[in-house]
């Protein structure tokens, strides 16, 4: 066993040491940087990082060339809001790490930490990465607490260490869904939220186990909220109706150091100018265009375009098993007025910025992780697909449980009829 582990360790060292120098040549490149979109360009990758993006097809010596002529190249997509790595089958009887039940370590839910829970071997990882999702924000979806714990930013490369940034953000839901679990009324939830935040602000920097403490937050909740208060970890606030979003904006004005992000925001377009002025970005699924509740009456597919037009930073990608459909969602936002480049930014650089990770993921900027996707054509067209995916400078094997199922039953269908057990 010891030998095995040693061999594995050596292998992983040599694999990373020998990461190829790769040139992706001739594609139409959306950079996610000030370079914009280049019609025919070359992306150079070395030592897991982006070295440069330049017009033309010139490749220095020593690079392995991947031809992307006639194809589209983008940064790897960043799943803006997911439960990836925390859930295999949500409605199964087994453990689902995206749902949390009560424990005495937390009173407001902020303390819970998904970085302990991410499973890089989840089938969703390969299923999503072969379609261009290379990293994601992931956090708890179901809890009776005010806060949905501390989320993490993860890579989908299947590596033993999937967490790129633990405790990267804290989430809270102030819409109907959140209110239903916390206090039953906004009149209760907002008093709870405001006081949990103020209390964490006034609490001493460290609360040791022997410090007397009677707060509405537990000691560990306070610890989790401190990075939120100074703006290091964004606070992701779910809200849909305009009145709730106005409360979110007022919250931001009361607590200007907090990096507030609006999530879901179905009526965001009604307060788009105020959101832009308050510099509050939004994470949405633009396809939510129906009044699913009395806090969603203004839902429309034009939300993304209207928010963008007002100057709001928009990220698209709220799903888990089908986070791969974020491209379709973004495409439909384009069909309803969002500029194409803004839609690509909404899938890549904007979520990276929102998560405080823009130097690492979401763009093809010099020094960024070499997460890159070569698409058969326009990534937002439902008929096009990711053809080659690179994560951290290495080409991802194009396989997944779903691909293997397809191949097994295709072979079965193509073979002479046999009634025996397939294995």
């Amino acid at each position: 066993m010891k030998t095995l582990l040693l061999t594995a360790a050596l292998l992983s060292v040599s694999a990373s040491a020998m990461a190829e120098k790769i040139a992706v040549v001739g594609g139409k490149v959306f950079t996610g940087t000030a370079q914009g979109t280049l019609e025919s360009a070359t992306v150079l990758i070395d030592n897991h990082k982006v070295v440069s993006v330049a017009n033309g097809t010139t490749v220095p010596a020593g690079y392995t060339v991947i031809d992307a002529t006639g194809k589209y190249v983008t940064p790897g997509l960043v799943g803006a809001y997911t439960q990836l790595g925390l859930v295999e089958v949500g409605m199964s009887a087994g453990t689902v790490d995206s749902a949390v039940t009560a424990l005495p370590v937390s009173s407001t839910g902020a303390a819970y930490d998904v970085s302990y829970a991410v499973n890089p071997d989840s089938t969703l990882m390969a299923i999503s990465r072969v379609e261009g999702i290379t990293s994601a924000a992931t956090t708890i979806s179901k809890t009776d607490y005010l806060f949905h714990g501390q989320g993490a930013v993860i890579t989908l490369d299947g590596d033993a260490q999937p967490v790129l940034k633990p405790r990267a953000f804290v989430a809270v839901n102030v819409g109907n869904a959140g209110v239903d679990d916390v206090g039953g009324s906004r009149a209760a939830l907002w008093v709870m939220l405001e006081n949990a935040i103020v209390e964490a602000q006034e609490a001493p920097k460290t609360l040791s186990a022997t410090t007397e403490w009677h707060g509405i937050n537990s000691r560990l909740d306070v610890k989790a909220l401190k990075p939120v208060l100074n703006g290091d970890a964004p606070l992701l606030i779910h809200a849909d109706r305009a009145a709730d979003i106005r409360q979110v904006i007022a919250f931001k004005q009361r607590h200007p150091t907090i990096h507030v992000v609006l999530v879901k925001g179905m009526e965001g377009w009604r307060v788009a100018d105020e959101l832009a002025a308050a510099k509050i970005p939004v994470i949405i699924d633009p396809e939510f265009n129906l009044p699913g509740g009395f806090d969603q009456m203004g839902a429309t597919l034009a939300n993304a375009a209207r928010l963008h037009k007002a100057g709001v930073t928009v990220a698209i990608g709220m799903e888990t098993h089908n986070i791969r459909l974020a491209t379709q969602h973004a495409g439909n936002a384009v069909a309803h007025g969002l500029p194409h480049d803004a839609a690509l930014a909404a899938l890549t650089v904007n979520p990276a910025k929102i998560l405080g990770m823009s130097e690492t993921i979401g763009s093809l900027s010099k020094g960024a992780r070499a997460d890159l996707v070569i698409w058969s054509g326009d990534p937002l067209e439902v008929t096009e697909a990711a053809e080659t995916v690179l994560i951290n400078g290495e080409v991802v094997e194009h396989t997944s449980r779903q691909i293997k199922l397809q191949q097994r039953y295709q072979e079965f269908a193509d073979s002479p009829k046999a009634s025996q057990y397939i294995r």
Partner: protein
Amino acid sequence: MKEFGYQIYSFQHAVEAYKIADILAENNVCSAMWADWWGFKMEAYDGIRENVPMVHKAGACAIVHSDSDLGIQRLNQEAAKAWADGRRVGIDIPQEQAWVWLSANPAKSLGIFDKTGSLETGKNADVVLWTANPFSTYARAEKVYIDGGLAYDLNDPQTWPVGDFELGQVGEGDSK
């Protein structure tokens, strides 16, 4: 079905139809399938993107469905995804044939193919004019005729439906 002498018209969801496509074909049973939904419960864990085209290729009746108030609004895109996913694994079905997944085949499975589901003399004039090839994300239904009447015109907000529920509420008359 055989034992009790009745005919099943369609299986709904049919996430694993691709595993028994030949048997479905032999028994003349349709499958109404998602393009790509999967994994929300164990019965859907083996969902694959090529379900619809694989069932079609086996000669069985394939239907693309949404089971969703969002997906049904853009069922053309669900068909487009299934069509493209099939093509990528070598199941090359012409687009005009793939269109039966959301027209003729569901009509047959519901027993109303004599009235709708294809453009044939004498049938109800249920017709859509698209802004572009409906296998594109960017295509929108521009004019929708139901039984010969113009039910929706993308360019005329007066024709956009406003339900009783929406009257006097935020979003009344807005584009959806």
